[in-house]
């Protein structure tokens, strides 16, 4: 969902944000240089990635990893780092390469 941005006459002054949860509609995925790619064959659903993700971008349903929220993932790579060494179900790949698909 794209947000229609207001001009200076219509914005609240002082940088105030009047509504709650605006970070949901504010997409920060465009900052990403490296994209996390998940391998379901290797994943053991320990959910370390979900615990450590600083942007709440690991989507989990019924205790299972189901995907990344790429609208908000900034590509920091913490998920790949925290994935157990014996598992390594997440690899960071060039965003530019992934975005071609």
């Amino acid at each position, binding site marked *: 969902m794209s947000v229609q*941005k*207001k*001009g*200076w006459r219509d*914005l*609240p*002054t*002082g*940088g*105030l*944000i*009047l509504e*709650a949860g*605006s970070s949901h509609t504010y997409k920060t995925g465009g900052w990403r240089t490296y994209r996390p790619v998940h391998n379901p064959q290797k994943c053991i659903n320990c959910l370390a990635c979900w615990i450590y993700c600083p942007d709440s971008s690991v989507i989990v349903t019924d205790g299972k990893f189901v995907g990344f929220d790429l609208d908000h993932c900034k590509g920091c790579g913490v998920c790949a780092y925290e994935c157990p060494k014996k598992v390594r179900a997440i690899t960071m790949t060039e965003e530019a390469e992934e975005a071609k698909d």
Partner: protein
Amino acid sequence: MWERLYIASGNRLPIIMTTVNRALSAPINIHCDHSDAMGARDAGWIQLYSENAQEAYDNLIQAVRIAEHRDVRLPVMVCMDGFIISHSIERMEMLDDMPVRNFIGPFKANYPLLDINNPVTYGPIDLQDYYIEHKRQQAEAMKLAGPVILEIGKEFGETFGRSYGFFEGYMLDDAELVIVGLGSSTGTVRSVVDELRAKGIAAGLLKLRTFRPFPAHEIAAAIGGAKAVAVLDRSDSFGAYGGPLFSEVRSALFGKNDAPPVVDYIYGLGGRDFGIADVHGIFDDLQDIVQNGAPEDEVQYITVRE
């Protein structure tokens, strides 16, 4: 420290700060000059300068109204000269609490911090897609502060008997030789203007009260007809072409028909005395400029040992 000032204005907080102007180290010095406030002139604060204790007091009361005005909501610095005003004994009139309370009136925040039923986010990050809009709002508020300052200065006069504008002109209407300054030294200039007027010399003074927002058009109208103008800067902007006040005054006059030559005197740094003889020297220079044109060095230090 410095960015705090920008945060106050950027968050549109009507904070009032009494700024007792002083020199900045190094070398260590806390005596009067305007280096502190002038260094903060781009921080988005309204700046009112005071000649004496009475003006500092009156400006402070008006500052609350100006800052809290719904069109403005900007912080205000009320500047007074360190030691010369802050540590001297002068006669002044204190007002009773109730009339001042009535003059100021209640403050109504647009979005009170403690309004738990309508919570908002204060001070969020503001990136490339919004920041300039918020700065544009600040520029507008500063522009709207102009008429508000005039309106409140007039109302203060009607209520308490002392009116205030952007500046005070002394013997200015027909003045040919004009000194523009701000702060306590303007009292010294005024007394020399009296001496010169008694001798038939058309000297005048423009004492600036409102430096931010800078009343460029009003100043140009007030001194555009003079034959020579000297600006007094009690701070330097090292490496700039002249002190902060000079840059603004000269810019206000630039491009006007028959604009007078404008020269700058950087004086009184670190609390160095600025006396009657210094003012006479400046008016002598202005007379010389009228006869022989502006000197090559339009910006010079005075009250300094060579």
